[in-house]
Every structure is written in structure tokens, then in C-alpha cells.
């Protein structure tokens, strides 16, 4: 049998349906690939026994004619998702032993449709990071290397484990989350497809919270169609999340391959930033040309508040995080370091359990929310956030979607940006606006740079218009014909 890990999710589902192979065979191939790829540090917990048990149950369903839309497909799950009876750490020591007694809605939806869980994927601690270096489990290593080099590169973050596992063919697809770019930047760094849907599409219930008004779950996959299949399963209204939208989920895969003729594509001039590599600018131009060839109309648009999105985000997100992470006090679950009294126990537990970047963000959040600074920082940031959302609303008067680069560079070396927090934050310069406005954004692999590293293009859509993004993403994917894969060194 040819290597089953070479299949896309779609072709694997077709093969399962045609009984060309069983889910047990497909799952075993991925379990073996994971065991052979431990050098990537993509998984923080492998669950091979559970995977094979789920695969056997899937094969039984298929034999009985009751298979679901993802039946038998082995997936990886970002460690931010609570999985019943299976440890979920959010990349942090403070809940390093936490075994959730409940299942997140997004993963429950995947299991409802028959998917198989291979294990839990590494990530930046509490999803705070752009390089995976803040993980308590050590960084994920990008399966991609520069041509002729052997330096270890970041897979991006925070969903670095999801991105690396998908790129290295350790799973057919993965769940991920995106608060400021945590799906799209790693997708760009690993030559994979990632979509952050509209805020409210996917339930946040059972997903460890970072910044609740920005957090959204989404899939990472090797093709646009695979991402569409996964999102269709993951999304849907959930009464357990009060911000979950009470709307029907379309069949997103039906949008892939649809004509994009006549769609108006906005090119925001503010996304041309100083110091951006010429190759990324050239790829952006190429993407514009591809969509023009596919029949799209290109229009120049202005999003004048773009440069203020990151500073606004670094008030809003830490403020929400400082509130959300107050729950980790060592009393009901998680790490406890006994102190002299209650306050001392809180302070010691939290100092021992949180890593440096998480502590830094909690302090910023606490500072901007503290008496005397609330109006000057937090309220100001919320007003700037409105300005940013208004920019997009104005753009939608003249275009149907936007095309931008996903990230300002290709994957960088581990350790390269870790001394300067602001330099690290700038990774999210093109992605963070979408979270603030609650819009859908997708990264599609579009080419390689001179060193042979993948680069991505980002599509941004109107709220709830993921369908158009899947059509446009399919068109870009077809035009780019991105076939490159990392050369196996692990």
C-alpha cells in the first residue's frame, strides 16, 4: 500500500468510503509517522491507543452504513481544547496535569462526525506567542528548513504544533485557534492552509480562554478543500457559548472550485509596510495577478487605522487575559505552591506556574485596567478597535474581499526574536486587524522564497462570508499550484 500519510483529508475520506483501506490502517500509518517525528516536538501527548480504538469504532460504523462526514479521519487537536479524560495543558505548567472532565464543543462536533484523535498538539503557553517558544513543553521545530541549511526554524505560533503536524503529514488536519494570527501566521510559515472564521462561528466552550472577545477556533489542513470540510464540522451554534451565533453552517466545501469571476478584490495600501522583504511584495503582486486572471476585479482600498491595530490589540488582549487567567489560583485545579497564607499561596502558585510571556501580559493587562489608567488605555483601545472595524465596513462598500500577505517574513530561526517582545508582536501586523473586527481570514500557501521557505497570502472576508474566502482560496491554490513539501530530516 502506498504511504497513506500522503493523502489529503478529502482523498482519504474518498478512499475510506471506497473501502480502499480501513480507518485502522490509515490511523496506524499516522501513529507511526508521529512516533518517527518526535524531533519536531509537535505533539505534547500522543494517544495511539485511543486513536486505534476510535478507528476500530469508525470501521464498524462504516460497515454498518452509518459513517459520518469525517468518519475514520485521524486528526491532531491543539492542546488548548479540553478533551474528556485526556490531559489538556494549554502549553502551561500551571495546568500541566489537568485532565478535563468534559469535552469542548468543537472537538465534540468532530467526534460526532466520526473523526479520530491522534493526540494533543504543542502550542505557545495559553496561545500567547508567535514562535512556539513560550510553550512549557519547549518549542515545536518547523519541518521546513532553508535550502542547504540545518538551522532550526519556528513553525510560527501559537498553533505551531498544529501547523508542523499538518505540514509533516503527521495528521490529515488539525484544530487550531486564532486570537491575533495564531492560525494564519503558522499556516504561512509551514505551507499549510488555515482559516480563522467569523467570531461566533465556532463555539469557544471548552477552549481554554485567552482573550474572549478575540478567540476563535479554526482548522489547519493541507488544502483549501480540506480546511472547508473541517470547518463545516467544527462550526455551529452552541447554547453553552453566549457569543456563538444562532445560524446554520453552510457546506463550505461546496464553495471550493466555484467561479470567482466578477468578485471585487480590495488591496489595502496600508499593508505595504517598511522593511517587508521584496519577495513578499512580489508574491502579493503575483496573487493580485492570479485573481485578475481568474476574473476578479482589483480595487485599491484604504484601511487608515491599520498601524494602530497591534498597539490596540496589546491592550485589549492582555486586559482580557489578565481577567481570564485570574482563575488559575491553585485552589480548585492546577498547580498549587503552598505559602504562608492564602495570598502568598496565590502569588507563589501563579509565579511558579506561568511562564515569562504570560506573566508579562498579565501585568500589562492588570496595569491598563487599574484605577487611573482604565480610560487612558483600555477605553481608548476599545475606541480604536471601533475605528478599525469601521475601516473594514467602508472597504466593503467597494470590494467583496481583501488580499494581503499573511506575515511580514518567512519562518525565522528559533531564538531570533525572543529578546524583544515588540519585535515578536510585529509578526501579527497583517493578521490582528481581522480579530479586532471579528472577520474571517484565511492563509493560503502561495510560493517559496529564495531560501526555499513557504510564504502565504491572506484573504479577508465580510462577517459570515467564509464561503467567498473558500472560493477565492481555491482559486489562489489552483493558480499557485503549491506542491512543495518539506524535505524529511526528522
Amino acid at each position, binding site marked *: 500500500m502506498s504511504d497513506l500519510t500522503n493523502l489529503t483529508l478529502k482523498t482519504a475520506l474518498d478512499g475510506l468510503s471506497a473501502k480502499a483501506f480501513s480507518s485502522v490502517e490509515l490511523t496506524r500509518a499516522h501513529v507511526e509517522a508521529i512516533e518517527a517525528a518526535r524531533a519536531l516536538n509537535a505533539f505534547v501527548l500522543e494517544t495511539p491507543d485511543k486513536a486505534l480504538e476510535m478507528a476500530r469504532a469508525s470501521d464498524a460504523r462504516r460497515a454498518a452504513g452509518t459513517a459520518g462526514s469525517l468518519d475514520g479521519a485521524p486528526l491532531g487537536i491543539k492542546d488548548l481544547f479540553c478533551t474528556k479524560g485526556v490531559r489538556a495543558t494549554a502549553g502551561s505548567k500551571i495546568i500541566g*496535569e*489537568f*485532565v478535563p*472532565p468534559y469535552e469542548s464543543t468543537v472537538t465534540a462536533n468532530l467526534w460526532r462526525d466520526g473523526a479520530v484523535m491522534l493526540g494533543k498538539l504543542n502550542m505557545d503557553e495559553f496561545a500567547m506567542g508567535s514562535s512556539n517558544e513560550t510553550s512549557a513543553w519547549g518549542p515545536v521545530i518547523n519541518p521546513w528548513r532553508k535550502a542547504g541549511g540545518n538551522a532550526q526554524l519556528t513553525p510560527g505560533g501559537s498553533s505551531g504544533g498544529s501547523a508542523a503536524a499538518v505540514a509533516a503529514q503527521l495528521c490529515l488536519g488539525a484544530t487550531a485557534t486564532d486570537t491575533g494570527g495564531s492560525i494564519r501566521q503558522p499556516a504561512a510559515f509551514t505551507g499549510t492552509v488555515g482559516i480563522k472564521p467569523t*467570531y*461566533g462561528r465556532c463555539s469557544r466552550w471548552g477552549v481554554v480562554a485567552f482573550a474572549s*472577545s*478575540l478567540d476563535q477556533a479554526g482548522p489547519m489542513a493541507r488544502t483549501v478543500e480540506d480546511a472547508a470540510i473541517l470547518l463545516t464540522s467544527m462550526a455551529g451554534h452552541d*447554547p453553552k457559548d*453566549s*457569543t456563538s*451565533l*444562532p445560524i446554520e453552517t453552510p457546506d463550505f466545501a461546496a464553495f471550493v472550485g466555484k467561479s470567482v469571476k466578477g468578485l471585487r478584490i480590495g488591496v489595502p495600501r496600508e499593508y505595504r509596510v517598511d522593511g517587508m522583504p521584496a519577495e513578499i511584495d512580489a508574491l502579493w503582486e503575483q496573487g493580485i495577478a492570479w485573481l485578475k486572471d481568474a476574473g476578479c476585479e482589483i480595487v485599491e482600498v484604504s484601511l487608515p487605522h491599520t498601524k*494602530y491595530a497591534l*498597539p490596540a490589540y*496589546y*491592550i485589549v488582549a492582555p486586559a482580557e487575559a*489578565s481577567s481570564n487567567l485570574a482563575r488559575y489560583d*491553585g*485552589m*480548585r*485545579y*492546577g498547580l*498549587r505552591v*503552598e*505559602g504562608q*497564607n*492564602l*495570598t502568598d*499561596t*496565590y*502569588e*507563589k502558585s*501563579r*509565579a511558579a506556574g*506561568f511562564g515569562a510571556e504570560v*506573566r*508579562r501580559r*498579565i*501585568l*500589562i*493587562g*492588570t*496595569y491598563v485596567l*487599574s484605577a487611573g489608567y482604565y480610560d487612558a*488605555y483600555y*477605553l*481608548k483601545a*476599545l*475606541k*480604536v*478597535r*471601533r*475605528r478599525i*472595524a469601521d475601516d473594514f465596513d467602508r472597504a466593503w462598500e467597494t470590494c467583496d474581499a481583501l488580499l494581503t500577505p499573511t506575515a511580514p517574513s518567512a519562518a525565522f530561526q528559533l531564538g531570533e526574536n525572543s529578546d*524583544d517582545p*515588540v519585535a515578536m508582536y510585529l509578526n501579527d501586523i497583517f493578521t490582528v486587524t481581522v480579530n*479586532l*473586527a*471579528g472577520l474571517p481570514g484565511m492563509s493560503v500557501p502561495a510560493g517559496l522564497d529564495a531560501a526555499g521557505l513557504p510564504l502565504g497570502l491572506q484573504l479577508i472576508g465580510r462577517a459570515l462570508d467564509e464561503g467567498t474566502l473558500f472560493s477565492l482560496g481555491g482559486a489562489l491554490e489552483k493558480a499557485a499550484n503549491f506542491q512543495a513539501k518539506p524535505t524529511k530530516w526528522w
Partner: protein
Amino acid sequence: MTIDAATVRKVARLARLAQPEETVEQLARELNGIMAWIEQLSEVDTDGVEPMTSAVHTPLPMREDVVTEGGDPDVVLSNAPRRSGDFFVVPKVVE
């Protein structure tokens, strides 16, 4: 606006994060760097702008005020750092 060592100590106390004294100066420098970068927000004219607190335009839903899940203390206590019977064991709060 500058964050000095005293501010770091105060904020760390508010956040219930023990902050070793030898790290306070370094942290103050880092936070100052970040806040100086954030300061550019003051350039944006936000007069009369309504703060955006949510990306969702629909009103928050209401539900019946009834118990939907519960009655299983073992599940609730399954991750407790310390328990005694059906109770969490915590440091003494009242002297």
C-alpha cells in the same frame, strides 16, 4: 508615563504574581518598552467614538435560570490539588 519599580511591585501584587525583587528593574524596562510603543494610540482621534466591546452584533441570549448539569462532586473535584471528602482544601481565609 513611566512604569517604575514601585509600579511593577504594585501591579504584580494586584495580579497576585510573586515577583522576585531582582527581576523588578528588568521587568520595568520591558513593560516601559511595550507601553511606549502602545502610546502611539494617542494619535488616533476617538472623540465621540463608541467603544467596541464585542465583535458580535446580536444581543446576549437569555436562558431559564435552572440547573442544567451538576450533582457530581467527584467530577468537580477530579483535578483538585487537595480535597477532603466532597470539599476542596484551601488555606485558612478567616483568622
